[in-house]
């Protein structure tokens, strides 16, 4: 699965910017919207946001690299998020992560070469009762055992 071309990206970003009134304090909200739409933040998009919101590009990059929600590289179709919260930790989350890394052959923060999966960790999703938890796209998979990891990931296409 390929990522969109620059033109398409800029068009989508302009569409999002049109909904905000060019107030600099909305920078993070705009970045969140763009990240959600494109699943990453392309360079030309950041320049555009900087101009529209009248925020120095330096400050835009500061925010993008500070917060975990943002990515400067394209992301896969599905984001696989393994919860590493305390409750999941004591229920074996490190071993789940280890298994996911082996199955996908990538580390957290990376994306599979076919752009199907990106792997992330999170420090608590707040559904501790069903830990260990892995989220694929929008689907929560709770009470996960090691041998369910591959089966679960295989069920996505």
């Amino acid at each position, binding site marked *: 699965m390929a990522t969109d071309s620059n033109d398409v990206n800029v068009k989508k970003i302009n569409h999002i910017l049109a909904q905000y009134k060019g*107030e*600099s*304090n*909305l*920078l*993070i*909200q705009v*970045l*969140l919207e763009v990240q959600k739409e494109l699943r990453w933040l392309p360079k030309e998009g950041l320049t555009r946001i900087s101009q529209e919101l009248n*925020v120095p590009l330096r*400050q835009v990059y*500061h*925010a993008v690299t*500070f*917060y*975990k*929600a*943002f990515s400067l590289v394209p992301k896969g179709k599905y984001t696989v998020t393994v919860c*590493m*919260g*305390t*409750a999941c*930790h*004591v*229920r074996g989350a490190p*071993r789940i992560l*280890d*298994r996911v890394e*082996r199955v996908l052959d990538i580390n957290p923060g990376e994306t599979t070469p076919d752009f199907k999966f990106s792997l992330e960790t*999170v*420090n*608590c*999703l*707040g*559904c*501790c*009762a*069903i*830990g260990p*938890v892995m989220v694929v796209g929008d689907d*929560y998979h*709770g009470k996960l*055992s*090691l*041998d369910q990891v591959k089966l679960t990931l295989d069920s996505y296409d």
Partner: protein
Amino acid sequence: MPKLRSGLELEELRKGIVSSRDPNRLCFTVCSGTACLAVGSQKTYANFEAELERQRLKNRVDLKATGCPGFCERGPIVVVYPQGVCYLRVQPEDVTEIVSRSIEGQIVDRLLYVDPVTGEKIAHELDIPFYKYQNRLILGNNRLIDATKIEDYIALGGYRALARALFDMTPEQVMAEIEKANLRGRGGGGFPTARKWKSTRDAPGKPKYVIVNCDEGDPGAFMNRALMEGNPHSVLEGLAIGAYTMDSHEGFVYVRQEYPLAADNIAIAIRQAENYGLLGKAILGSGFDFIVKIHKGAGAFVSGESSALMNAIEGKVAEPRPKYTHTAEKGIWDKPSCLNNVETWADVPLIINSGAEWFASIGTEKNRGTKIFSLVGKVNNTGLVEVPLGTPLRDIIYRMGGGVSGNKKFKAVQTGGPSGGCIPEQYLDSSVDFDELTKLGAMMGSGGMIVTDEDTCMVDFAKYFVHFLSEESCGKCVPCREGINHMLDVLTRITEGKGQATDIQLLEDLARMLKEASLCALGQTAANPVLTTLKYFRLEYDAHINEKRCPAGVCRALLAFYVEADKCQACLICARNCPVNAIDGGKNLIHVIDQSKCIRCGTCLEVCPPRFGAIRKISGEPVPAPIPEQARVIQRKG
């Protein structure tokens, strides 16, 4: 809908809603909190819809998607009203039976709670021990409300406190009531709420801002999420009352992006409240204007710190500021800004409705009211527990939590998130409040409670929190950025069996430096998990350092796995599951683990059938020599 123009109109609306509803009508409620959604409650809800349609019951029976009642361990939860019959772990295929039986006034026995001690089945929600011993002043309404319908909240007397404050009380009287109730901040600091409000009200500068802090970043804590998802109006009402008291006309709700449902529900709630004239211009026809905006976080633990959060609202990175002047006086854009936790705001309408004296009658002298705790980890009843402040830890873990799961032995309970500490068994009778737990070196914090058992390594556990904080330190001040990383290095080498005798002293020195020199609470309290585990579990540190042994069998570098030759039945299950093909074996050939290939992941131990139990985990002792080649063949009879 027409905007309400007085307290009287609100009351009339409420009466209208109540009288249009038949309290004896059958109503199915399905929990739609994140944890229940994660185990399929959406499907269960859809099946209820379809089933009511199929049986042509839609005009006679109600169906409601409600907020989280807290018993997440047994989700999806369905409660049938008016009887209040509670069904647990309801699967989509159970729905037909529940509907058919309920119509006839019968109960589906197999889905009821079973008391683990007596074996008795319990039908009514409030008779279940998990609920029975709680005092759910704040959380209780979650199960009665569809968060996307303001009418549900109004029917229960919602916004009555706001009307009362606006029409029957001066801001000074509201302030006095909050002061008399001795409400303290639920986010963890325990700072007297009235004093904070006064600072903002009296500080020069306009506009003044009021803010809801829903950046619940502590891992293992989700009480704010449940409240924002399940009963957002209770938070908004408290916020509006606070705004009126402090002469503020603009508020923010800061919600972390990891809580998408909470952000959605609060947005719906704001819109509905505006439509009714309960927010916006001239609220309820009074002269008071108040608008609320939502600001989503973008993933940074430190943004829960007040000054960092205010930077984030300004559109900047969430780095804390030095607090020579409190944010209550100089916050967002240097204007007076009052930030309170979700739960603190939700307490406000209760106090205005029922009075400070009533509120002060709950809890202990310096710790009034109730507090929600999120009880997680190795405990039978994971979920949210609301109890009066001052309740002993033991009650929370054993009476409501049902004790340690899997018949394991209790080791410690970790309270207060990454800034908190681990409390061992001998202090389980301590009462939980802002002051008691601090004396033990831990803190109550925002209410996270993680139960650990004998299988948790306390050195690894301390390392977990330090690792978490090393990733979350914003890097602005050197003591926190470098100190936490240094601490992580030391803990890592201890868990890898490379610890040195001087490491304990080094950890203590770093802890003191962090506490005294860090800019914000993240760094100042970062050493708490290390200090409390050192204080109460020193022997575990010593075992790692001196004997290169992990007593709980967690730290990988100090473990080894081997196959017990006399128990192995050569079933090949472990060999097939080993991720690195380290297990040599075949049909009728006793398996052997190649120690040089083994990554000590423990998969073999997990998959070996319990009736064989052939995999042994050891730490701090040599691995026995593998069985000689010629002895590996199993001779089977017949």
